[in-house]
C-alpha cells in the first residue's frame, strides 16, 4: 500500500506567459484514492492532463510506476481517464465502447467478451445494454459505461475529471457511493479532480487542495476540514465563522481572546494553531456545528456571544440559524441538531456558546 505509483517532482506548466502550475510535487501511493480540489482555474485539470499524457509539463519530472513519463504518450501510460463529458463514442455500441481499449491492445475476442461482461456486472449494467448506443442510456448508465471503458484494461491509475458534475444531486450521491465501493474492491489508485470539497471528503483518502496553480494543502479529509491551511481552504467547504481574536504567547502556549466583547482568555494547544498564524492577531475558526444556542448556563471554558436570530433554515435533521451579533460583522452561522432549539423564532434574542479550545487559530491574513 505504501509504494508510490505516481511521483510528481516540482512540475510546472506554462501556457505562453500564463503560469498554470507552479512546482507541483505530489506522491500518490499504490491503491490510494486522492482528490485534487480547487476552484475553477486552479490548475487541477491541467495537472490531471499532464498525468494522463495529454499535455506535457513545462518543467519538472513525472514518474508513474517508477518510469519517467516525459516521452511516453497517453496511449502507453498505465493511466486511464474518465472524462468530464464522458466522451463515449456515439457511433459505437456499449459493448464496442467498453471493449475498445482491449481491441487496441489486441486482446483475443473471447477474452474481450468475457471481460466486457465482467465489467458490466461490476457496474451493475444489464447485459441487454451491450447492443445499445450510448445515447439510448440514461445519464447514470452512461457514467457507468465510461467507468467500465476506463477500467476494463485494468489500469494502475484511474483518472477522473469531474465525472459527476453533470448529474443531479440524488444520482450523484448514489454514484459516489458506488465509486467508493469500486475503489475498495479493485485496489486501483484513483485520482479524482473535483471542485466540490464535500465530494472529495466523502471519497478520498487524501485531499490535495490547489489554488492558483499551487498546492496549498495536502492531507486527510478531517485535517482539511478541521485544520485548514488558511482562510480560503476553510471557507471552501460549508459555512464557517471567523472570529477575530488577539493572540498572546504564554509559557503554556498561545492565549487568545476576542477583539470585541469581554471573554476570559483561552489557551490553545499547539495542534490547534495553524503554522501560518503569527503575530498578535488571528482568526478563530468555528464550524457551525461547534456552536450551540444556550438555554441555561454555559459550561466551563465556553465563550458566549449574545445576538438575535436573523434567519432560520430548517434542514430536516438539523436547523441552521444565522445570528446577528456584536462580535462579528457578518451573521454567526450555527447548526443545531437538537429538537429543543428548533422552535426559536426569527428575531428572538439568543446566547451562543462554543468552546474556544476546540477551535482552530488561523492567521488574520486571507
Amino acid at each position, binding site marked *: 500500500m505504501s509504494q508510490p505509483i505516481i511521483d510528481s517532482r516540482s512540475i510546472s506548466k506554462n501556457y505562453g506567459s500564463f503560469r498554470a502550475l507552479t512546482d507541483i510535487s505530489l506522491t500518490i501511493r499504490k491503491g490510494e484514492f486522492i482528490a485534487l480540489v480547487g476552484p475553477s482555474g486552479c490548475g487541477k485539470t491541467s495537472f490531471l492532463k499532464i498525468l494522463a499524457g*495529454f499535455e506535457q509539463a513545462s518543467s519538472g519530472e513525472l514518474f508513474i510506476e517508477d518510469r519517467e513519463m516525459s516521452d511516453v*504518450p497517453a*496511449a502507453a501510460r498505465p493511466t486511464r481517464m474518465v*472524462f468530464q463529458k464522458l*466522451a463515449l*463514442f456515439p457511433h459505437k455500441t456499449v459493448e464496442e465502447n467498453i471493449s475498445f481499449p482491449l481491441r487496441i491492445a489486441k486482446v483475443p475476442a473471447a477474452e474481450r467478451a468475457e471481460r466486457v461482461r465482467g465489467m458490466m456486472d461490476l457496474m451493475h449494467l444489464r447485459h441487454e445494454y451491450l447492443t445499445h448506443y450510448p445515447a439510448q442510456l*440514461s*445519464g447514470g448508465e452512461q457514467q457507468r459505461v465510461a467507468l467500465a471503458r476506463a477500467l476494463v484494461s485494468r489500469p494502475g491509475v484511474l483518472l477522473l475529471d469531474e465525472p459527476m458534475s453533470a448529474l443531479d444531486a440524488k444520482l450523484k450521491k448514489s454514484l459516489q457511493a458506488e465509486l467508493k465501493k469500486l475503489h475498495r474492491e479493485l485496489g486501483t489508485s484513483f485520482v479524482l479532480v473535483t471542485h466540490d470539497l464535500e465530494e472529495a471528503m466523502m471519497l478520498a483518502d487524501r485531499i490535495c487542495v490547489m489554488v492558483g496553480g499551487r498546492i496549498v494543502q495536502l492531507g486527510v479529509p478531517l485535517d482539511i476540514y478541521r485544520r485548514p491551511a488558511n482562510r480560503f481552504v476553510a471557507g471552501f467547504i460549508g459555512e464557517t465563522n471567523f472570529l477575530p481574536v488577539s493572540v498572546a504567547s504564554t509559557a503554556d502556549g498561545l492565549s487568545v481572546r476576542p477583539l470585541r466583547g469581554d471573554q476570559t482568555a483561552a489557551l490553545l494547544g499547539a495542534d490547534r494553531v495553524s503554522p501560518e498564524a503569527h503575530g498578535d492577531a488571528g482568526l478563530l475558526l468555528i464550524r457551525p456545528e461547534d456552536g450551540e444556542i444556550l438555554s441555561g448556563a454555559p459550561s466551563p471554558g465556553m465563550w458566549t456571544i449574545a445576538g438575535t436570530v436573523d434567519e432560520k433554515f430548517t434542514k430536516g435533521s438539523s436547523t441552521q440559524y444565522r445570528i446577528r451579533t456584536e462580535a462579528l460583522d457578518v451573521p454567526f452561522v450555527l447548526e443545531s441538531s437538537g429538537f429543543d432549539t428548533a422552535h426559536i423564532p426569527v428575531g428572538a434574542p439568543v446566547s451562543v456558546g462554543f468552546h474556544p479550545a476546540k477551535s482552530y487559530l488561523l492567521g488574520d491574513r486571507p
Partner: protein
Amino acid sequence: MRNPLTNRLLDIGLSGWMIALLVFLYIPIVTLAFFSFADSRVLTFPVQGFTLNWYRELFERPDFLPALRTSALVAVATMLVSTVLGTCGAILWMRYRFRFKQALQALTFLPVLFPQLLLGVMLLLWFSVLGTVFDFRLGIPTLIIGHVIYVTPFVMIIVAVQLYGFDDTVEDAARDAGASDWRVLVEITLPMIWPGISAAMIMAFLLSWGNFYLSYSLNGSMRTLPIFIYSGITVGSSPIYPALATLNFIPAMGLVVLADFLRRRALRRDTGAAKEES
C-alpha cells in the same frame, strides 16, 4: 395569443406562402415529367393522350449516352476530389486558428459568390493560353478542375457544420485507450463526421452532374448531359428531352433521399431516445 382569429390567419398565410413557393419550384419539373408521357410531337397543351413512345425513341437512338458517360465521369471525379479538399478545408477552418486564416477562408468561398459563367470564361481564357503553351485541349480534366473549384466550398460548409458539433474529447478518450493517431482517425473521427461527409459527397455529385455554366465554357469537344440538352432545346424542342429529363430526376431524387436517410439515422443514434432516470 391575444387574437386567435388573426393568429390563425397568420399561420395559414405563412404556411400557404411556403407551400405556394414549393409548388412554384415544382412547376417546370412536373411539367417536364408530364410532357414526357404526352402523345404529341409538339409540346403544347392540352395533350391528346399518353404514351411511352418517347422513352422508346430515346433508347432506340441513344445519342445521349456519350454525354451521360462524360457527366458521370466528371461528377464522380469532382465528388471525390472536392470531398477530400473540402473536408481538409473544413478541418482547417474549425480546428485551427492561424495567421492568414481569414484571407484563406475568403479565397475559398469566393468561387461560390462568383458568377459561374464568368468563372467559366476566365478559366476558358486561362486554359486556352496555357493550352497553346503546354499543348493541351479542353476536355474532361478541365471540366473536373472547373467543377472542383465551384463545388469545394459547398462541401466545406456541410462538413464544417458536422464538425461544429464534434466533441473532440472523444478523440482524447480513444488515445487514452491506447489508439494510434491513424486508428483515432479511422475508427473515431471519420465515422463520427461521416454523416456530414456523405451528405457533402452526394451534394457534390449532384452539383457537378447538373452544372451547366462551367461545363458550357470548359467542355471543349466533350458534351455533358446538361450541355447535350441545352444544344438540343436551343435548336428545337422535341418530346425526347422531357423523357430524358424525367429519367434524370429519378437517380437525383434517390440520392437526395439517401442523404437525408443517412443524416437522420446518425441523428437518431447520436441523440437517442433520451431515457429517463430510473
